């Protein structure tokens, strides 16, 4: 059986196809392009599976964040908490963990016990604790996200809690001649500092990192002190779409 999972993100749509529990196709399309070139509208959004070029599909499951969670015709829609938990379970085989997902526009912390969500915290109000913040700061520093994320030693203090004020604080530090490495580390550390209060309610042993921040080495380094084990999943951006496939293969009943 071939199952299609689609995660409708704010900037990219992630597409995964699973066959017999194995991922066989993975692709990303910009959200704009996805709706413009691959969909039509007839009361509900209809995805043109032919254009996606993914072959025959037996079941299709979608998830998405907030307003992006558009109802696709012929898709079973699941909420994104569940999608991410299932994605993490598929990728790690674990049943007890804390999942930290820092996306472009939101942060999710989810506690899973015995394979079921028991606690969660969502922060969707503030840009200063999610991926977009890192991107903006990297832009100001004229450095790639990848490069910036490698630096964790000796961070410069950035105290502002707000993304906008942080920018001027950063520029202030640049003007004072602080080394770029310290500035990079400072940006990473300031994100970590904002995640910490969210995480403090979620003590546990194993922390799984998902979302863009899973690739951020500095943040992993800082989190190392708070958990006995930090687990990164291989395909952090595809986690939600993978979770959709997992749901489709395990739980979805044939109508």
């Amino acid at each position, binding site marked *: 059986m071939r199952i299609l999972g689609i995660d409708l993100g704010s900037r990219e749509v992630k597409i995964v196809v699973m066959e017999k529990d194995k991922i066989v196709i993975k692709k990303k399309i910009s959200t704009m392009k996805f709706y413009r070139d691959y969909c039509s509208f007839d009361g509900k959004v209809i995805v043109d599976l032919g254009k996606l070029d993914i072959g025959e599909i037996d079941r299709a499951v979608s998830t998405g964040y907030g307003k992006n969670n558009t109802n696709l015709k012929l898709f079973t829609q699941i*909420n994104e*908490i*569940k999608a991410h*938990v299932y994605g993490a379970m598929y990728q790690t085989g674990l049943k007890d963990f804390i999942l930290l997902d820092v996306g472009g526009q939101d942060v999710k912390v989810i506690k899973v*016990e*015995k*394979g*079921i*969500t*028991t*606690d*969660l915290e969502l922060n969707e109000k503030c840009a200063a604790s999610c991926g977009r913040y890192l991107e903006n700061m990297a832009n100001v520093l004229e450095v790639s996200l990848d490069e910036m994320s490698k630096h964790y030693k000796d961070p410069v203090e950035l105290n502002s809690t707000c993304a906008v004020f942080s920018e001027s604080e950063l520029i202030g530090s640049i003007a004072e001649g602080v080394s770029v490495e310290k500035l990079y580390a400072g940006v990473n550390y300031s994100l970590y500092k904002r995640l910490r209060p969210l995480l403090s309610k979620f003590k546990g042993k194993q922390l799984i990192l998902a979302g863009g921040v899973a690739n951020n080495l500095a943040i992993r380094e800082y989190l190392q002190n708070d958990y006995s084990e930090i687990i990164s999943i291989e395909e952090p951006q595809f986690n939600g779409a993978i979770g959709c496939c997992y*749901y489709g293969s*395990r*739980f*979805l*009943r044939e109508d």
Partner: protein
Amino acid sequence: MLKKIGLTTTVPVEVLVTAGYSPVDLNNIFITSEDYLKYIDIAERDGFPKSLCAWIKGIYGACLENDIKEIVGVVEGDCSNTRALIEVLQLKGIKVYPFSFPHSHNLKDVEIEIRKFMNIFNVTEESVEQTRQRLNKLRELAKEIDELTYLENKVNGFENHIYQISLSDFNGNVDNFENSLKDAISEIKQRKPINRKVRLGYIGVPPMTGDIYEFVESLDAHFVYNEVQREFAFPRAITAKNIFEQYYDYTYPYNTTFRINELKKQIEERKIDAIIHYTQAFCYRAVEDIVLKKQLDIPILNIEGDKLNVLDARTKLRLEAFIDMLSDLKEAN
């Protein structure tokens, strides 16, 4: 008119009824009152700390406001906060009779405590046994309602909760309460079963937030077990040889191991999919969650209540996420 006596938790009520008292469960007056927040407020104004379980403060307020002059205070086996509560009530001129559920949880010690209790109230074992037989008739009816809940799915979780818990003081009048139980049973039997997807067990102290029952029903789940409420109703009293055995075979005040055995039995018998473990903010019982999660091989969600008598948004979200995934599992099986 019978003399009222306040209870801070379930005690051998057979003794009190034999002695001619009308027992009043202070918990019930507190939580069913529209003034419940006022009761907490009264306690806080009299100096009870903010960081103390709302039940204790509510009981205090309820006791003073409802003109209760005598109470039974449980000094062992219940919460240690009760001891402090009793001292303050004594200061206010309320007469306190002590009772203990011995930590040893051994039948001999339970017997000693109950005999002391009978002496305080000047009643004989024979007369207490007569009362016990009388009250067992009501316990049997409550048990029947419980069975109609989990065997026939004709009683919802909230009704089950209310009927079981009312056995702590028989709503103040044994005969009237017996009649209302009988009426309820014949009405319930006419009902069609209510089948919901997920079968839940409610364990831990009874909730401050009574709306939890209705809320889970909106998610296609229902409670088919109310642990402590059922214990308060003593479903096994009917087979106990005497009052000593009855209060020995009671899970609420003793150690967790004894409690876990009963929980396992009920989970099995009632085909429960998952457990909601309710604990109260600032209560030591939240620690028991660690043991329960380890010992019970079933998903458990621990939620915590504080002063409000309705669920907060965060708890609702957690319940939703939990039950959503449980339904997936059920679908798969």
